[in-house]
Protein backbone atom coordinates (compact mmCIF):
# COMPACT_ATOMS: atom_id res chain seq x y z
CA UNK A 1 0.00 0.00 0.00
CA UNK A 2 2.73 2.41 0.94
CA UNK A 3 4.59 1.83 -2.33
CA UNK A 4 1.40 2.69 -4.20
CA UNK A 5 1.04 5.89 -2.24
CA UNK A 6 4.58 6.98 -2.94
CA UNK A 7 4.12 6.23 -6.61
CA UNK A 8 0.96 8.34 -6.60
CA UNK A 9 2.90 11.19 -5.04
CA UNK A 10 5.63 10.96 -7.66
CA UNK A 11 3.06 11.09 -10.44
CA UNK A 12 1.37 14.05 -8.77
CA UNK A 13 4.57 16.04 -8.62
CA UNK A 14 5.46 15.26 -12.21
CA UNK A 15 2.01 16.32 -13.36
CA UNK A 16 2.05 19.64 -11.52
CA UNK A 17 2.04 21.90 -14.55
CA UNK A 18 1.66 25.28 -12.92
CA UNK A 19 4.94 25.33 -11.07
CA UNK A 20 7.45 28.18 -11.21
CA UNK A 21 10.35 29.38 -9.09
CA UNK A 22 10.74 32.84 -7.58
CA UNK A 23 11.05 35.74 -9.99
CA UNK A 24 14.31 37.59 -9.49
CA UNK A 25 15.80 40.66 -11.11
CA UNK A 26 18.27 39.78 -13.87
CA UNK A 27 18.86 43.21 -15.39
CA UNK A 28 17.77 46.81 -15.23
CA UNK A 29 18.09 50.03 -17.15
CA UNK A 30 19.64 52.07 -15.63
CA UNK A 31 21.91 49.47 -14.10
CA UNK A 32 22.41 48.99 -10.38
CA UNK A 33 24.83 51.60 -9.04
CA UNK A 34 24.87 53.65 -12.23
CA UNK A 35 25.16 57.44 -12.35
CA UNK A 36 24.09 59.86 -15.07
CA UNK A 37 21.21 61.83 -16.48
CA UNK A 38 17.89 61.62 -14.67
CA UNK A 39 16.03 58.69 -16.24
CA UNK A 40 12.44 59.20 -17.34
CA UNK A 41 11.76 55.53 -16.74
CA UNK A 42 13.35 52.41 -15.36
CA UNK A 43 13.12 49.05 -17.09
CA UNK A 44 13.30 46.04 -14.77
CA UNK A 45 13.97 42.62 -16.30
CA UNK A 46 13.03 39.55 -14.30
CA UNK A 47 13.90 35.86 -14.61
CA UNK A 48 10.27 35.01 -15.32
CA UNK A 49 7.00 36.80 -15.97
CA UNK A 50 6.11 38.82 -12.91
CA UNK A 51 3.82 41.60 -11.83
CA UNK A 52 4.96 44.61 -9.84
CA UNK A 53 2.83 44.96 -6.72
CA UNK A 54 4.64 47.74 -4.88
CA UNK A 55 7.05 50.49 -5.87
CA UNK A 56 8.78 53.09 -3.74
CA UNK A 57 11.30 55.76 -4.61
CA UNK A 58 13.51 57.40 -2.04
CA UNK A 59 16.04 60.17 -2.53
CA UNK A 60 18.84 60.08 -0.01
CA UNK A 61 17.79 62.11 3.02
CA UNK A 62 14.19 62.47 1.84
CA UNK A 63 10.90 60.70 2.54
CA UNK A 64 9.93 57.48 0.80
CA UNK A 65 7.50 58.12 -2.09
CA UNK A 66 5.09 55.47 -3.22
CA UNK A 67 4.70 55.03 -6.97
CA UNK A 68 1.82 53.31 -8.67
CA UNK A 69 3.13 50.06 -10.18
CA UNK A 70 2.16 49.15 -13.75
CA UNK A 71 -0.64 46.59 -13.85
CA UNK A 72 0.85 44.43 -16.58
CA UNK A 73 2.61 41.10 -16.15
CA UNK A 74 5.81 40.39 -18.02
CA UNK A 75 9.52 39.74 -17.83
CA UNK A 76 10.40 43.35 -18.76
CA UNK A 77 8.50 45.92 -16.76
CA UNK A 78 8.73 49.66 -17.33
CA UNK A 79 8.38 52.04 -14.44
CA UNK A 80 7.72 55.70 -15.20
CA UNK A 81 9.52 58.09 -12.92
CA UNK A 82 8.71 61.58 -11.71
CA UNK A 83 11.09 64.48 -12.37
CA UNK A 84 14.25 63.80 -10.42
CA UNK A 85 16.66 66.23 -8.82
CA UNK A 86 20.34 65.46 -8.53
CA UNK A 87 21.11 62.96 -5.79
CA UNK A 88 21.23 59.28 -4.88
CA UNK A 89 18.04 57.26 -5.22
CA UNK A 90 16.72 53.86 -4.21
CA UNK A 91 13.88 52.30 -6.15
CA UNK A 92 12.26 49.63 -3.97
CA UNK A 93 10.20 46.99 -5.76
CA UNK A 94 8.09 43.97 -4.96
CA UNK A 95 6.90 41.51 -7.55
CA UNK A 96 4.76 38.44 -7.52
CA UNK A 97 5.68 35.55 -9.80
CA UNK A 98 3.27 33.15 -11.42
CA UNK A 99 3.51 30.83 -8.43
CA UNK A 100 2.39 33.60 -6.08
CA UNK A 101 5.82 33.91 -4.49
CA UNK A 102 6.66 37.47 -3.59
CA UNK A 103 10.17 38.76 -4.07
CA UNK A 104 11.50 42.19 -3.30
CA UNK A 105 14.58 44.17 -4.04
CA UNK A 106 16.05 47.60 -4.50
CA UNK A 107 17.80 49.39 -7.32
CA UNK A 108 20.30 52.10 -6.48
CA UNK A 109 21.19 54.86 -8.93
CA UNK A 110 22.55 58.38 -8.84
CA UNK A 111 21.24 61.34 -10.76
CA UNK A 112 24.03 63.68 -11.75
CA UNK A 113 22.08 65.73 -14.25
CA UNK A 114 18.53 66.45 -12.99
CA UNK A 115 15.43 66.27 -15.13
CA UNK A 116 15.03 69.40 -17.24
CA UNK A 117 11.89 71.40 -16.45
CA UNK A 118 9.00 70.05 -18.55
CA UNK A 119 11.10 67.19 -19.93
CA UNK A 120 8.57 64.57 -18.94
CA UNK A 121 5.35 64.61 -16.96
CA UNK A 122 5.51 63.72 -13.31
CA UNK A 123 4.56 60.19 -12.52
CA UNK A 124 1.39 59.75 -10.60
CA UNK A 125 2.33 59.32 -6.96
CA UNK A 126 0.03 57.28 -4.75
Amino acid at each position, binding site marked *: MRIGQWLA*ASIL*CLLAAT*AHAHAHLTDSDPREGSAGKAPAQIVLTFSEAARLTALTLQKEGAEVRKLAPPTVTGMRLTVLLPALAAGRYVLGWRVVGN*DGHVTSGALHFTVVEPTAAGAHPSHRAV
Partner: protein
Amino acid sequence: MSVDTLSVTLRALAFVALFQAGGTVLFLAFHENELPATGRLLRRAGILSALLAAILLLAQYLLEAARMSGEFAGALDPTLQGLALGSAASVSLSWRLLGLLLITVGLRRRGAESTLGVIGVVILLAAFTFVGHTSTGVRRWLLSPLLLVHLSVVTFWFGALLPLYLISLREPVETSVRIVMQFSRRAVWLVPGLFIAGLTLAAGLLPNFAALGTPYGVLLIAKVTGFCVLMLFAALNKWRFGPALRTGKPEAGRRFRKALAAEFGLIAVILGVTAVMTTFYSPES
Protein backbone atom coordinates in the same frame (compact mmCIF):
# COMPACT_ATOMS: atom_id res chain seq x y z
CA MET B 1 7.33 43.47 13.27
CA SER B 2 7.38 43.79 9.50
CA VAL B 3 4.99 41.88 7.29
CA ASP B 4 7.90 39.87 5.90
CA THR B 5 9.10 38.86 9.37
CA LEU B 6 5.62 37.80 10.45
CA SER B 7 5.09 35.86 7.23
CA VAL B 8 8.35 33.93 7.49
CA THR B 9 7.72 33.23 11.19
CA LEU B 10 4.31 31.76 10.37
CA ARG B 11 5.89 29.70 7.59
CA ALA B 12 8.58 28.33 9.90
CA LEU B 13 6.04 27.44 12.59
CA ALA B 14 3.81 25.84 9.95
CA PHE B 15 6.75 23.68 8.84
CA VAL B 16 7.28 22.50 12.43
CA ALA B 17 3.58 21.74 12.93
CA LEU B 18 3.03 19.97 9.62
CA PHE B 19 6.14 17.80 9.86
CA GLN B 20 5.11 16.90 13.41
CA ALA B 21 1.62 15.96 12.23
CA GLY B 22 2.92 13.92 9.29
CA GLY B 23 5.65 12.29 11.35
CA THR B 24 3.20 11.25 14.05
CA VAL B 25 1.13 9.45 11.40
CA LEU B 26 4.19 7.62 10.09
CA PHE B 27 5.33 6.71 13.59
CA LEU B 28 1.93 5.33 14.53
CA ALA B 29 1.75 3.39 11.25
CA PHE B 30 4.80 1.45 12.45
CA HIS B 31 4.20 1.23 16.19
CA GLU B 32 0.61 1.91 17.20
CA ASN B 33 -0.10 -1.67 18.27
CA GLU B 34 2.82 -1.59 20.67
CA LEU B 35 1.74 1.55 22.51
CA PRO B 36 -1.15 0.93 24.91
CA ALA B 37 -0.20 3.83 27.20
CA THR B 38 0.83 6.39 24.58
CA GLY B 39 -1.07 5.68 21.35
CA ARG B 40 -4.11 7.80 22.17
CA LEU B 41 -2.02 10.70 23.43
CA LEU B 42 0.07 10.61 20.26
CA ARG B 43 -3.01 10.64 18.06
CA ARG B 44 -4.25 13.71 19.92
CA ALA B 45 -0.86 15.40 19.58
CA GLY B 46 -0.89 14.62 15.85
CA ILE B 47 -4.39 16.04 15.40
CA LEU B 48 -3.44 19.17 17.32
CA SER B 49 -0.32 19.58 15.17
CA ALA B 50 -2.35 19.16 11.98
CA LEU B 51 -4.94 21.73 13.06
CA LEU B 52 -2.21 24.15 14.12
CA ALA B 53 -0.42 23.63 10.80
CA ALA B 54 -3.65 24.35 8.89
CA ILE B 55 -4.22 27.58 10.85
CA LEU B 56 -0.63 28.73 10.37
CA LEU B 57 -0.66 27.92 6.64
CA LEU B 58 -3.93 29.81 6.17
CA ALA B 59 -2.66 32.80 8.13
CA GLN B 60 0.54 32.88 6.12
CA TYR B 61 -1.40 32.59 2.88
CA LEU B 62 -3.74 35.46 3.83
CA LEU B 63 -0.67 37.55 4.57
CA GLU B 64 0.73 37.04 1.08
CA ALA B 65 -1.25 40.01 -0.25
CA ALA B 66 0.28 42.13 2.50
CA ARG B 67 3.73 40.92 1.47
CA MET B 68 2.98 41.93 -2.11
CA SER B 69 2.35 45.51 -1.01
CA GLY B 70 4.96 45.51 1.74
CA GLU B 71 2.36 46.71 4.27
CA PHE B 72 -0.21 44.98 6.47
CA ALA B 73 -2.95 47.06 4.81
CA GLY B 74 -2.28 45.12 1.61
CA ALA B 75 -4.03 42.09 3.16
CA LEU B 76 -7.32 43.92 2.57
CA ASP B 77 -6.57 44.78 -1.06
CA PRO B 78 -8.94 42.69 -3.24
CA THR B 79 -6.65 42.97 -6.29
CA LEU B 80 -3.67 41.57 -4.41
CA GLN B 81 -5.78 38.87 -2.74
CA GLY B 82 -7.00 37.99 -6.23
CA LEU B 83 -3.40 37.63 -7.41
CA ALA B 84 -2.66 35.32 -4.49
CA LEU B 85 -5.81 33.30 -5.12
CA GLY B 86 -5.00 32.79 -8.80
CA SER B 87 -1.47 31.58 -8.16
CA ALA B 88 0.06 28.12 -7.91
CA ALA B 89 0.68 28.85 -4.22
CA SER B 90 -3.06 28.63 -3.61
CA VAL B 91 -3.18 25.27 -5.43
CA SER B 92 -0.33 24.04 -3.26
CA LEU B 93 -2.10 25.35 -0.14
CA SER B 94 -5.28 23.50 -1.12
CA TRP B 95 -3.38 20.22 -1.41
CA ARG B 96 -1.62 20.83 1.90
CA LEU B 97 -4.94 21.50 3.63
CA LEU B 98 -6.41 18.37 2.08
CA GLY B 99 -3.41 16.41 3.33
CA LEU B 100 -3.83 17.83 6.83
CA LEU B 101 -7.56 17.08 6.78
CA LEU B 102 -6.87 13.44 5.88
CA ILE B 103 -4.23 13.27 8.61
CA THR B 104 -6.75 14.60 11.14
CA VAL B 105 -9.40 12.09 10.06
CA GLY B 106 -6.86 9.27 9.95
CA LEU B 107 -5.63 10.01 13.46
CA ARG B 108 -9.08 10.05 14.99
CA ARG B 109 -9.17 6.33 15.40
CA ARG B 110 -7.14 3.21 14.83
CA GLY B 111 -7.59 0.76 12.00
CA ALA B 112 -8.81 1.38 8.47
CA GLU B 113 -8.96 5.15 8.87
CA SER B 114 -5.25 5.32 9.68
CA THR B 115 -4.56 4.58 5.99
CA LEU B 116 -6.19 7.93 5.25
CA GLY B 117 -3.55 9.54 7.45
CA VAL B 118 -0.73 8.01 5.42
CA ILE B 119 -2.37 9.18 2.19
CA GLY B 120 -2.64 12.61 3.81
CA VAL B 121 1.10 12.64 4.50
CA VAL B 122 1.84 11.75 0.88
CA ILE B 123 -0.38 14.57 -0.38
CA LEU B 124 1.04 17.01 2.16
CA LEU B 125 4.61 16.33 1.06
CA ALA B 126 3.82 16.14 -2.65
CA ALA B 127 2.34 19.65 -2.43
CA PHE B 128 5.84 20.96 -1.70
CA THR B 129 6.87 20.01 -5.21
CA PHE B 130 4.16 22.14 -6.86
CA VAL B 131 5.92 25.43 -6.18
CA GLY B 132 9.41 26.62 -5.52
CA HIS B 133 12.88 26.17 -6.89
CA THR B 134 12.79 22.45 -7.51
CA SER B 135 9.64 22.69 -9.63
CA THR B 136 11.15 24.54 -12.54
CA GLY B 137 13.69 23.83 -15.25
CA VAL B 138 14.78 20.83 -17.20
CA ARG B 139 15.97 18.88 -14.16
CA ARG B 140 12.59 18.95 -12.54
CA TRP B 141 12.07 15.24 -13.19
CA LEU B 142 15.02 14.63 -10.87
CA LEU B 143 14.69 17.47 -8.34
CA SER B 144 11.02 16.99 -7.44
CA PRO B 145 11.34 13.30 -6.48
CA LEU B 146 14.57 14.14 -4.62
CA LEU B 147 12.72 16.82 -2.67
CA LEU B 148 10.02 14.28 -1.90
CA VAL B 149 12.62 11.84 -0.54
CA HIS B 150 14.28 14.63 1.45
CA LEU B 151 10.99 15.76 3.00
CA SER B 152 9.84 12.21 3.70
CA VAL B 153 12.94 11.50 5.77
CA VAL B 154 12.59 14.84 7.59
CA THR B 155 8.99 13.91 8.40
CA PHE B 156 9.97 10.43 9.57
CA TRP B 157 12.83 11.74 11.71
CA PHE B 158 11.41 14.95 13.14
CA GLY B 159 7.97 13.48 13.67
CA ALA B 160 9.36 10.57 15.68
CA LEU B 161 11.11 12.70 18.30
CA LEU B 162 8.02 13.68 20.29
CA PRO B 163 6.60 10.12 20.24
CA LEU B 164 9.96 8.72 21.39
CA TYR B 165 10.05 11.32 24.17
CA LEU B 166 6.58 10.40 25.39
CA ILE B 167 7.16 6.67 25.06
CA SER B 168 10.27 6.85 27.23
CA LEU B 169 8.11 8.54 29.88
CA ARG B 170 4.97 6.42 29.72
CA GLU B 171 5.68 2.96 28.37
CA PRO B 172 7.45 0.08 30.13
CA VAL B 173 11.25 0.08 29.76
CA GLU B 174 11.34 -2.95 27.47
CA THR B 175 8.81 -1.35 25.09
CA SER B 176 10.74 1.92 25.03
CA VAL B 177 14.04 0.20 24.34
CA ARG B 178 12.57 -1.97 21.59
CA ILE B 179 10.97 0.97 19.79
CA VAL B 180 14.03 3.20 20.16
CA MET B 181 16.20 0.46 18.68
CA GLN B 182 13.78 -0.11 15.80
CA PHE B 183 13.73 3.62 15.08
CA SER B 184 17.53 3.75 15.17
CA ARG B 185 17.85 0.84 12.77
CA ARG B 186 15.55 2.56 10.25
CA ALA B 187 17.23 5.93 10.76
CA VAL B 188 20.65 4.47 9.93
CA TRP B 189 19.38 3.83 6.41
CA LEU B 190 17.14 6.83 6.00
CA VAL B 191 19.18 9.70 7.40
CA PRO B 192 22.05 9.29 4.91
CA GLY B 193 19.30 9.37 2.26
CA LEU B 194 18.24 12.75 3.62
CA PHE B 195 21.79 14.03 3.32
CA ILE B 196 22.42 12.63 -0.14
CA ALA B 197 19.07 13.91 -1.44
CA GLY B 198 19.77 17.32 0.11
CA LEU B 199 23.24 17.56 -1.41
CA THR B 200 22.02 16.44 -4.83
CA LEU B 201 19.21 19.00 -4.63
CA ALA B 202 21.73 21.71 -3.78
CA ALA B 203 23.98 20.67 -6.65
CA GLY B 204 21.01 20.71 -9.00
CA LEU B 205 19.70 24.08 -7.84
CA LEU B 206 22.85 26.15 -7.46
CA PRO B 207 24.11 27.45 -10.81
CA ASN B 208 27.79 27.25 -9.81
CA PHE B 209 30.14 26.87 -6.88
CA ALA B 210 30.36 30.64 -6.38
CA ALA B 211 26.63 30.68 -5.58
CA LEU B 212 27.56 29.31 -2.15
CA GLY B 213 28.57 32.88 -1.36
CA THR B 214 25.08 34.26 -2.04
CA PRO B 215 22.54 34.55 0.81
CA TYR B 216 20.89 31.36 -0.45
CA GLY B 217 24.22 29.55 -0.47
CA VAL B 218 25.20 30.80 2.99
CA LEU B 219 21.88 29.63 4.44
CA LEU B 220 22.37 26.29 2.71
CA ILE B 221 25.77 25.97 4.39
CA ALA B 222 24.10 26.85 7.72
CA LYS B 223 21.62 24.01 7.13
CA VAL B 224 24.39 21.52 6.39
CA THR B 225 26.27 22.65 9.51
CA GLY B 226 23.10 22.23 11.56
CA PHE B 227 22.68 18.76 10.08
CA CYS B 228 26.21 17.80 11.13
CA VAL B 229 25.52 18.87 14.73
CA LEU B 230 22.27 16.97 14.54
CA MET B 231 24.12 13.83 13.54
CA LEU B 232 26.14 14.17 16.74
CA PHE B 233 22.98 14.13 18.86
CA ALA B 234 21.55 11.27 16.79
CA ALA B 235 24.75 9.27 17.26
CA LEU B 236 24.67 9.89 21.02
CA ASN B 237 21.10 8.65 21.15
CA LYS B 238 21.80 5.61 19.02
CA TRP B 239 24.94 4.38 20.71
CA ARG B 240 24.76 5.83 24.21
CA PHE B 241 21.52 7.24 25.57
CA GLY B 242 19.16 4.84 23.75
CA PRO B 243 20.89 1.62 24.87
CA ALA B 244 21.26 3.10 28.40
CA LEU B 245 17.47 3.04 28.71
CA ARG B 246 17.82 -0.73 29.31
CA THR B 247 19.10 -0.01 32.83
CA GLY B 248 15.69 1.41 33.71
CA LYS B 249 17.34 4.18 35.72
CA PRO B 250 15.48 7.51 35.76
CA GLU B 251 18.75 9.31 34.98
CA ALA B 252 19.12 7.35 31.71
CA GLY B 253 15.61 8.36 30.66
CA ARG B 254 16.30 12.02 31.45
CA ARG B 255 19.51 12.07 29.39
CA PHE B 256 17.75 10.41 26.48
CA ARG B 257 14.91 12.93 26.58
CA LYS B 258 17.30 15.87 26.83
CA ALA B 259 19.09 14.69 23.70
CA LEU B 260 15.72 14.24 21.94
CA ALA B 261 14.69 17.77 22.96
CA ALA B 262 17.99 19.12 21.61
CA GLU B 263 17.41 17.29 18.32
CA PHE B 264 13.87 18.68 18.13
CA GLY B 265 15.08 22.22 18.80
CA LEU B 266 17.86 21.97 16.25
CA ILE B 267 15.61 20.59 13.51
CA ALA B 268 13.10 23.36 14.29
CA VAL B 269 15.88 25.92 13.81
CA ILE B 270 16.89 24.27 10.51
CA LEU B 271 13.26 24.45 9.39
CA GLY B 272 13.31 28.14 10.31
CA VAL B 273 16.43 28.67 8.21
CA THR B 274 14.72 26.82 5.36
CA ALA B 275 11.69 29.10 5.67
CA VAL B 276 13.91 32.21 5.41
CA MET B 277 15.91 30.71 2.55
CA THR B 278 12.92 29.72 0.44
CA THR B 279 10.87 32.83 1.18
CA PHE B 280 13.39 35.54 0.45
CA TYR B 281 16.09 34.07 -1.72
CA SER B 282 16.56 32.17 -4.91
CA PRO B 283 19.49 29.92 -5.86
CA GLU B 284 19.99 31.77 -9.12
CA SER B 285 19.96 35.31 -7.75
